[in-house]
């Protein structure tokens, strides 16, 4: 396939939003780790971001159709790496999520799986050719997502496993599921929750899923994180305590204020004004992505971008929801804000594919 890619078609607007969020992220990581042993994590984050930008530009040059072609192989490797994690992975805080490679590099395969699932599902629904979905099609799609999901659940990493679900939901929605099918699936899922609650979930997972409802019941135990997060957000007020001056963040009351609870730290130090600004950036970024999906040259392009949108909005909703006490503590990072290489690389690689789809819109 011939390609005429021009950086005039590169999505500079999207890049501005991504850059703005990245800068905010680095500054907040700096503030949140200033007096802790995680000091200089902001510098490490800059390195990850630099790597992310390079990866994004590189991937933006690769035709996304090639990705669609190799998606099946990639999916196979994904399943293998997830299985490998369960066997040789490093145990951190009771969960095997990481693989250590020579040279001090360790990575979390479950993050990459997200990206590959997006591409695989895009390919799958494209191949269905836009016809109305049969139950068989639906179950196949569920199986594609379900297998890696179960492997990740086994780690156990409930949060990441859940992020695979919106990819499937958006795929089914855009792939042409009928209302009746959707209603039946919804009912079935509701009924499945009951046995899943008693059989699949571990007690600590159940506790985490329910304690956000009454964080004051056990302020020293499972409710502690929620309680401290609420105090941090609430005490920020409208204008915030000021950078490096949030007592919850600086006094180490807020748990992991540079990763999962970075939004709480940001809210404490920059208030409602800062929070709305960040959410506005997310909103503009997502709208821009949806616009790109609309203008994509073909169906797989649209599906891939909407898959990325699904993952991003799900993570934002769950992470911010957790920080303000509307969602349980699940350990899902906030995209582009939370510290962490795997999370940063996922976002930038996703944006790289999006860039390529956008640049390819006039190419045939």
């Amino acid at each position, binding site marked *: 396939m011939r390609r005429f890619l021009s950086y005039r078609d590169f999505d500079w607007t999207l890049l501005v939003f991504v850059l703005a969020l990245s800068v905010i992220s680095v500054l907040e990581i700096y503030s949140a780790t200033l*007096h802790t042993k995680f000091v200089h994590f902001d510098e490490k984050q800059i390195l990850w971001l630099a790597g992310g930008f390079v990866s994004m530009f590189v991937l933006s040059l690769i035709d996304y159709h090639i990705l669609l072609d190799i998606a099946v192989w990639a999916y196979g490797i994904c399943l293998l790496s997830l299985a490998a994690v369960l066997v040789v992975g490093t145990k951190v805080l009771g969960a095997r999520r990481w693989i250590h490679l020579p040279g001090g590099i360790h990575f979390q395969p479950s993050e990459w799986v997200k990206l590959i699932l997006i591409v695989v599902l895009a390919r799958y629904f494209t*191949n269905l050719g836009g016809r109305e979905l049969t139950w068989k099609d639906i179950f196949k799609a569920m199986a594609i997502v379900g297998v890696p999901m179960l492997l990740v659940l086994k780690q156990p990493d409930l949060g990441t496993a859940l992020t695979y679900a919106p990819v499937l939901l958006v795929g089914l929605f855009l792939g042409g599921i009928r209302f009746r099918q959707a209603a039946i699936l919804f009912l079935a899922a509701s009924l499945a929750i009951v046995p899943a609650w008693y059989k699949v979930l571990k007690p600590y997972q159940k506790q985490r899923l329910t304690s956000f409802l009454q964080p004051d019941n056990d302020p020293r135990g499972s409710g502690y994180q929620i309680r401290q997060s609420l105090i941090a*957000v609430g005490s920020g*007020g409208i204008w915030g305590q000021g950078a490096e001056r949030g007592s919850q963040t*600086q*006094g180490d009351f807020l748990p992991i204020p540079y990763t999962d609870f970075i939004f709480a730290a940001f*809210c404490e130090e920059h208030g409602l004004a800062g929070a709305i600004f960040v959410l506005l950036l997310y909103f503009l970024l997502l709208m821009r992505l949806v616009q790109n999906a609309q203008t994509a040259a073909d169906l797989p392009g649209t599906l891939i971008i909407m898959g990325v949108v699904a993952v991003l909005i799900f993570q934002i909703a769950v992470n911010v929801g957790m920080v303000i006490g*509307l969602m349980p503590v699940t350990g899902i990072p906030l995209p582009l804000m939370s510290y962490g290489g795997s999370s940063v690389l996922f976002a930038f690689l996703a944006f790289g594919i999006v860039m390529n789809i956008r640049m390819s819109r006039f190419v*045939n």
Partner: protein
Amino acid sequence: MAGTANKDDKIPSIKLTAIQYVIALILVILVSGLWRLQVLGAQNYRALAQANRIRKVPILAPRGKIFDRYGRLIVDNYPSVTCFLVPEQAHDLDSDIPLIAEGLHMQPDQLRAVLLRYRHQPKYQPIPLQQDITPDEQAFIAAHANELPELETIEEQRRLYPSNGFAAHLIGYVGEVSEDMLDDPRYAFYQPGDVVGRSGVEESYDPILRGQDGSRDVIVDSHGRELGALGIEPAVPGKSIRLTIDLDIQKAAEDAMGQREGALVAIDPRTGEVLAMVSRPTFDPNDFAIRIHRKQWDALLTNPENPLMNKAIQAQLAPGSTFKIIEAIAGLQDGIAQTLKVDCHGGAVFYGRYFKCWITARHQSHGITDISKGIYQSCDVFFYTLAEKLGIDKIAYWGHRFGLGEKTGIDLPNEATGIMPSPEWKMRNYHQKWFAGETISVGIGQGAIAVTPIQLIRAIAGIGSGGVLKRPHVVFPSEIPPDLTGYYQSQFPGSGDQVIAIDPANWEIVTDAMAQVTTFAGTAGMAHLDGIDFAGKTGSAQIVSNAYKASVGGGAKLNDTAWFVGMTPRRNPEIAVVLMWQNGSEGYLSARLAARVIAAYVDKQRREADNLPQVVNATKPAEANPPTAVPTVQQNKAAPTTGAKQKEAGRLQPNATANQPATAMAALWTSPANGTNDTSGTQIPKRVASLFPLPAGTTLHAGTFLLPPDPAKSTAHPLRTKPPAVAGSHGRSPSRRKSGT
């Protein structure tokens, strides 16, 4: 190419628009959630954040010090340093253990055992390693701050009491406030874990001695580490108080008691000020200053001799013959004792039962006995007869008038009441009728009657003062802040200050007879003090019947309680001493011990102003002193010589006076850090030595011994007390006397 699709396969844009709306909805929900927390709940969460980060760190207020009446230090505070170990701060705790153990003079295994005991607590919580560490241990910790960052020290003020139990019952001790006390509104001030006076002056004057703890507001992180400070509310130190105790007299009293079980109280009857108070056996209050070991505490509680009991105010015992003084006043005031003459044949029959006189044990008898001889010879038959004639109601009336069976109101905790029996008392408590024979027993201070030493000294010193009874107290009322005066007036109810009208003639009869007690004619001739107008009364109170004692084969624990109440001068005394010696057998033995305290007092007074030994015998109660001179009773003829005075001074081995700091007192304290007398390494001896000199401006309490000699009366030297002819018809040689009651 697999995966390529018809480019016409477009997704309906309505679906993408729907997703856009969903995204917008989600973000609106998140913003509304933020609004709820950051706008509506901001104030609440700010308060919670403040509570999180600000911690009140108490600043402990030092307790007030306790001084004697001349401002000499009795109870001090000292800075005590405790060493803690914070496991979280250690580089490598296991390899540090030998060094730490060596520096703190512990065994490595001992240290490991301590760490093991605290293994379950969070790593950032300090583990107390050693209390009261020595200066060189402090230096060790300071010098190894870099290698051993896990070691930390905290300094706090601890109580330093005289060692060896000196005045322990009087002073009391401090300890952590108990659960029961926290329920008491008087202790509403306290928090669990606070240190509070638990006994003696420490308890009764706790509201003055305790200060008000201050606090520092510090900013902390979630581990409690201090990040900064906000405000400070300084501690208000407790007020120091001055006791009425005279350290010199207290020392003499401690020495006089030795290790004998019992109690001794010396008071100034003119004011009720307690000059000395001793109870035996004693305990070391310093054991309580640092957390007392369970074993030590159990030993104190289970000791049958009850070392924690202040027997001076809590022992309730039959007063024996000392009660005869009160009965004599009753009989004289009733007008029947003046003319009463009893022929003692070693016993007599009352209400069909034979009552023996103590003298019968010596196969003697008192013969014709009047009130005076009845007192100085302590004739039981005389007082049996007097009791029979008075009847129990009159005896009980006078007993109550003099405060028996009632608290005195001394400003110390848990004073006992005692018992002054009467028919009503017996009916109320035993629902039995009073037997006439019981009156006879009460007549010699036996039977159901029970007194505390402090009650007895208040009563008899009051009689010596012509009926002026004072509430005994150990702290000068002027030391009590005005806002607490009301509290202290209500806190210690009792018979307090009273004036009982006594006919001066009766007063003279009784006090003159008491003065004879310490002559060769009296029951305490061996306690005689040359040149001192020393009056008193002995008492030997049975604690079991002679028959029972014989049936169990005797034994020291069943011996009589040996009482002595003495005072000088005989009328309007400046000092009165009661000595109660449990199982001491004979009152005159107690008299000899009490005489040492009297002698120490007189000797000190004489040294104060290089005063001539001169005393005027008053014949009117101090409160009712008429302006016209009343002839003094001159019993003393011989003049003392200077040589005699020196000899006497040498014999008495007086204690250091207030003007000459008591070097012996420095030995009252030992270094608490090492438990040895080698205090060269601590600050204590310096402080103690500097605090002993008499503070400037202190006026010494002058007594009648300091009065200038009256030229008109100086021909006689009343201090030289020569025994009058032995009254009594049995012609006993004084040297053969072995016992007295």
